[in-house]
């Protein structure tokens, strides 16, 4: 069975400071992991994904995440926050081969607040 826990429901940063959004997962198989972003009244957009290639994954808008199997973590980071980064962020896990479900499981989301 797969599950994902986003450790913070809200994260508040000042513009120009680093961003860290934390995600822990549980998976019985080699997982695929994703981060999605949702701006107000919009659908979700893929930021980045890990699918058993490089453990450090770079995404759009300067975001990146590192897959750490020993810690079962997939934290999202950005060196310098911008006002436009204010949004809801979702961590998603999907069990991989050979016997996992391909149905993604979503975390409850982390709201990123960026102060001027």
């Amino acid at each position, binding site marked *: 069975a797969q599950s994902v826990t986003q450790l913070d429901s809200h994260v508040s940063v000042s513009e120009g400071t680093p961003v860290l959004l934390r995600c822990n997962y549980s998976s019985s198989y080699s997982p695929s992991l994703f981060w999605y972003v949702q701006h107000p*009244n*919009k659908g979700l957009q893929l930021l980045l994904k890990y699918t058993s290639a490089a453990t450090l994954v770079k995404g759009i808008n300067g975001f990146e995440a590192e897959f750490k199997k020993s810690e079962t973590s997939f934290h999202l980071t950005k060196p310098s926050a911008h006002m436009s980064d204010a949004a809801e962020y979702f961590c998603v896990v999907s069990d991989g081969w050979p016997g996992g479900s391909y149905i993604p499981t979503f975390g*409850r989301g982390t709201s990123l607040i960026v102060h001027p």
Partner: protein
Amino acid sequence: DVKVTQSSRYLVKRTGEKVFLECVQDMDHENMFWYRQDPGLGLRLIYFSYDVKMKEKGDIPEGYSVSREKKERFSLILESASTNQTSMYLCASSTPRKGFSTGELFFGEGSRLTVL
């Protein structure tokens, strides 16, 4: 670009009414999903479909049904709307899992349903 289109962005219905939410994707994706999004609960899977006329229940199917008569279209039906079905509904599509990799989800912009 992949496009997932949800027919209505905002709907207001009365208790007991039948409600249809339509979703169309233009990338020939096999998988389609309906999620419900509520504050603090993340996205919860209602139903998904991996092929035409095929459907499987997700985590919260009660009070909902779906229809997939054509590959590009996946409809969510509320047979008798209730106030606790007031929510944001998100449709998504994806390619099937291939080997170690799970296809990413592509989302529509959502349909915000209010049941009075």
